[in-house]
């Protein structure tokens, strides 16, 4: 009964989203405020119904209802409760349901939090989001119904969740990522709505800024979580593989990062309007493209869902409709709009445009690198692979001008800036960052490579310039102590965002240049030494978990004779899915991670072990967290705060 209820409420939500996509738009067209007002009610009710549907599927997982095909193939009665719940989004059908739930959630949030916006705009925005909803509901109902029954012959027990997904990282990673992907639909809807109305003014930029920022924060955290998960769960010690599916999440992030910067320019200075609109359309379009790549099976990826062409065809049709339609609308409407603000070559505008150009160039690198193998094969030139060596080369080239500009940009004023005024502060921060870079490398780098110097210098350059800019801004009119308190939240947001990025770059540089990997054969009692650490192999003991058995290999770690930590690396055999998984043991630290993975048992009691020394790897995710914290501050800035008065008025009325 419950699964049928789930399907039923999902269909009702589909019906509501059809109404949502037509009724308010029509109302906006003929100027009927009642019809426009219906958008909010429809949006909220739709969210409630899809929420109920999601709850039904979760319930089926909790009570082990193996008459539901999706539950039977992705859960098991021995699976711990928290993984039974996260198994809801563990595969294609359920993750799509999560996707529409989140889409409905964002739609309802826009409906509830946009009271200060003109009714007409809200109606249009919600209608566009309703249209997106219709597409995804249809996709689920037609091709990927999670409520399908196995009746009359249902299995006694389920086939269990893929062991890789039985992990805290995978409980949190997809919802965060989807919050980001789908969150860009708000910026998309605002852009489409303003294109429809032909009002491409600064107002839409201001309205969509906090929404875009929210989506960007979720996406940043989502990507960082995914990278962290891959690092500790897959046992290969890497944190990014340039896999098509990772790229699919990175592309909207690059577009989104460009977007939050260009929105600032459009809002404050009224320039680059059509470019900003194009970015808003791109960020969400790239999210959709990512969905297609992950679920259609056109590319070979480690993460891909089991795919079939029918689903691929449906998403492709949807893609052409949504992206093609919006780009057509863009071509017709935006070409008629002219930006009217003016600025000189040496100005904040130019620097932000430069930031955008480089971010989008990076996006093009990722996009081409992801799709070109497909094109290469289709035009008969044969299969090729594009991976880490290519991407690393290109990103190293792009990041140098990007970070050099990033250090200067915030110091430069809007409209125009006299170069002479900046010469002194820039020279000062150059000298400080060179000194800092030398100090850092002599403290932490075991050897010197050109790439290490470059990366650490750029990181220092951005950090020092950011600090200096904050200092200058604070002491501009007041004493430092007074001035620093007067800085706006959005200024701190920028400073944290840039600082987080610099930390991330330093982390990447150190990890990529100075990681050490050892594959060793060890008998209990053996020890090996590297990078000041001594790893002593204690032996292997049996292991028993709820739905797995296995072995635990224990290593005692010493540094200079002093006990540091114990690493217990597991090797698990999952009974239902019948596969073996390595659970790496990690001793995390600010300046280094020690990482051990247990391999095969060799002859005469020896085991194969892999030990990594990973310097500064935490800085990569730490930097990402600081960046998203910056985003949060930007959202809290008083400019975006909902004004209380109008809200109250409306509540009374």
């Amino acid at each position, binding site marked *: 009964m419950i699964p049928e209820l789930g399907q039923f409420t999902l269909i009702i939500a589909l019906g509501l989203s059809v109404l949502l996509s037509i009724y308010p738009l029509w109302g906006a067209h003929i100027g009927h405020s009642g019809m426009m007002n219906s958008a909010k009610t429809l949006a909220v009710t739709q969210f409630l119904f899809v929420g109920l549907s999601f709850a039904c599927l979760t319930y089926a997982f909790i009570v082990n209802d193996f008459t539901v095909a999706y539950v039977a193939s992705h859960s098991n009665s021995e699976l711990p409760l928290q993984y039974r719940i996260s198994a809801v989004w563990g595969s294609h059908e359920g993750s799509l349901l999560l996707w529409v739930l989140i889409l409905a959630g964002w739609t309802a949030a826009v409906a509830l939090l946009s009271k200060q916006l003109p009714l007409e705009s809200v109606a249009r925005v919600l209608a566009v989001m309703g249209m997106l909803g219709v597409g995804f509901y249809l996709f689920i109902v037609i091709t990927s119904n999670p409520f399908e029954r196995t009746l009359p012959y249902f299995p006694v027990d389920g086939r269990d969740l893929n062991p890789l997904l039985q992990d805290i990282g995978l409980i949190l990673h997809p919802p965060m990522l989807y919050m980001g992907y789908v969150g860009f639909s708000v910026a998309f809807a605002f852009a489409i709505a303003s294109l429809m109305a032909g009002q491409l003014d600064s107002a839409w930029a201001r309205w969509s800024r906090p929404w875009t920022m929210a989506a960007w924060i979720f996406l940043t955290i989502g990507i960082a979580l995914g990278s962290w998960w891959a690092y500790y769960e*897959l046992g290969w010690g890497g944190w990014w593989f340039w896999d098509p599916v990772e790229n699919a999440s990175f592309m909207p992030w690059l577009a989104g990062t460009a977007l939050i910067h260009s929105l600032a320019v459009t809002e404050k200075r009224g320039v680059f309007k059509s470019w900003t609109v194009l970015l808003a359309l791109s960020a969400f379009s790239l999210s959709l493209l990512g969905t297609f790549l992950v679920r259609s099976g056109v590319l070979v990826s480690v993460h891909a869902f089991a795919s079939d062409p029918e689903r691929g065809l449906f998403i492709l049709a949807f893609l052409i409709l949504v992206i093609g339609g919006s780009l057509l609308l863009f071509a017709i409407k935006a070409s008629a709009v002219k930006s009217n603000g003016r600025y000189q070559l040496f100005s904040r505008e130019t620097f932000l445009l430069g930031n955008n150009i480089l971010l989008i160039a990076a996006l093009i690198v990722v996009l081409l690198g992801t799709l070109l193998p497909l094109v290469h094969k289709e035009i008969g030139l044969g299969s090729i692979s594009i991976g880490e060596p290519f991407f690393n080369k290109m990103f190293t080239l792009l990041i140098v001008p990007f970070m050099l500009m990033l250090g200067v940009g915030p110091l430069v004023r809007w409209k125009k800036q006299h170069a002479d005024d900046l010469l002194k502060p820039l020279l000062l921060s150059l000298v400080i960052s060179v000194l800092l870079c030398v100090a850092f490398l002599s403290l932490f780098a075991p050897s010197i490579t050109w790439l290490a110097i470059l990366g650490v210098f750029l990181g220092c350059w951005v950090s020092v310039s950011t600090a200096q800019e904050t200092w200058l801004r604070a002491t501009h009119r007041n004493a430092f102590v007074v001035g620093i308190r007067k800085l706006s939240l959005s200024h701190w947001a920028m400073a944290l965002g840039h600082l987080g990025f610099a930390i991330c770059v330093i982390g990447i540089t150190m990890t990529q240049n100075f990681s050490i990997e050892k594959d060793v054969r060890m008998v209990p009692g053996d020890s090996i030494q590297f990078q000041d650490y001594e790893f002593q192999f204690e032996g292997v003991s049996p292991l028993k978990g709820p739905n797995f058995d296995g072995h635990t290999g224990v290593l005692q770690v010493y540094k200079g004779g002093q006990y540091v930590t114990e690493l217990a690396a597991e090797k698990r055999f999952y009974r239902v899915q019948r*596969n073996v998984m390595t659970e790496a043991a990690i001793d995390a630290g600010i300046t280094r991670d020690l990482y051990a993975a247990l391999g095969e048992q060799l002859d005469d009691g020896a085991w194969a072990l892999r030990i990594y020394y990973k310097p500064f790897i935490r800085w990569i995710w730490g930097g990402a967290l600081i960046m998203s914290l910056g985003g949060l501050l930007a959202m809290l800035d008083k400019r975006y705060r909902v004004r209380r008065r109008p809200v109250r008025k409306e509540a009374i009325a």
Partner: protein
Amino acid sequence: MAKLLFICSLLMPGWAMAAIDVYEFDSSEQELLFHQLTKELRCPKCQNQNISDSNAPLAKDLRQKTYELVKQGNDRDQVVDYMAARFGNFVRYDPPMTPATVFLWLGPVCFIAIGLFFVFRHASRPKAKMQVSELATQEQEKLNRILNKDNTE
């Protein structure tokens, strides 16, 4: 569909489990080269994985072959060419130049060039008198009116 699922479940163990084997090298340069190569060569059988991370039997064979070739004193290019001659360009994560892969480099370069052109064309000359156009002021007022508050900046 069922078949695809089956294949997926077959391939899963390949990347769920760390592939660890123990090799002895003559020098640390050789060891470094070996690690670098196994990360740059793609396992043709597996999903998107290099031969270092994969536990598939073919990846194991290719690791072994890479080890032998490195041990014999071959350099990076020689090993990569050896593999590409047998398994095609698919095995190299660093794609070769072909009429199509040129766009990998040309695409971003062209975009940057166009972007720079735009920046230089649209920025006004330093000598020109800066003035806030009337339209911009109007728009700012409209924005303020809509938002019903003072512009703080």
